[in-house]
């Protein structure tokens, strides 16, 4: 039974401060191990540079590189062996078997993206008008304060309380409560005099 080549996808994270020479050396080794196993590299890209979800070897950031290749099963083993060897520079790696369809699909979607990307820069000119219109919404925000003054009407109930503490409730409330208070105090004084 002949061993048929498979499709593999390797994703590895390098240290953010890796030397370019070291990276080139590692990538060369990966390439060699694939080509020595009747393989071909379909894609070898820098995928992203992002913050790691958790620290690995005290690194908070990492650079992700993706490598898609078609080769005999031995190649994936060799690739992993090399990545393991340079584990000071390579924080994590994962190799998964994929299918030809998935690889082709990804290729097609990427080509689509590349086609759409040049067209997308046109929308930005249209965007600035919205920024000028944006400043209007803020005035709508101060709604909550109007809802807040509800409690104060309960305050005037204790007639012994002096008018001064009633001034603490916010914004619109003081005017109404002060009036109520003064009325209350007036009646009290009248009652007192009488």
């Amino acid at each position, binding site marked *: 039974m002949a061993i048929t080549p498979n499709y593999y996808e390797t994703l590895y*994270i390098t240290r953010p401060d890796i030397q370019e020479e070291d990276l080139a050396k590692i990538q060369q080794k990966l390439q060699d191990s694939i080509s020595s196993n009747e393989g071909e590299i379909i894609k070898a890209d820098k995928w992203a540079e992002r913050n790691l*979800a958790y620290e690995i070897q005290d690194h908070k950031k990492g650079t992700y590189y993706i490598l898609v290749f078609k080769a005999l099963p031995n190649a994936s083993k060799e690739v992993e062996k090399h990545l393991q060897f340079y584990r000071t520079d390579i924080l*994590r790696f*994962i190799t998964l078997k994929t299918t030809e369809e998935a690889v082709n699909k990804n290729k097609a979607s990427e080509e689509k993206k590349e086609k759409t990307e040049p067209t997308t820069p046109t929308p930005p000119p249209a965007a600035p008008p919205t920024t000028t219109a944006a400043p209007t919404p803020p005035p709508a925000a101060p709604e909550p304060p109007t809802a807040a003054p509800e409690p104060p009407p309960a305050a005037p109930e204790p007639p012994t309380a002096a008018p001064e503490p009633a001034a603490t409730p916010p914004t619109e409330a003081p005017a109404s409560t002060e009036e109520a208070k003064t009325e209350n105090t007036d009646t009290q004084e009248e009652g007192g005099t009488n």
Partner: protein
Amino acid sequence: MDSRRDRRFFSKKKVCRFCTESIEMDYKNVDLLSRFITDRKKIVPRRNSGLCAYHQRQLSTTIKRSRFMALLPYTVLH
């Protein structure tokens, strides 16, 4: 019968998103996977995610792969 009449809450029947929509599950697709994670970064159970058995199994492995590659956190406590 009474108890049945009193039941007023009708939950919409959930259909597996991965079956109905043609989305590929990929451990590199962080935005998609993060929707199936709780605030505490746990994998959402099937009763909440609404996925079928097959895709829930796939989801759990892809999330775990994603965690290994530091794309998703294991816990909040990192």
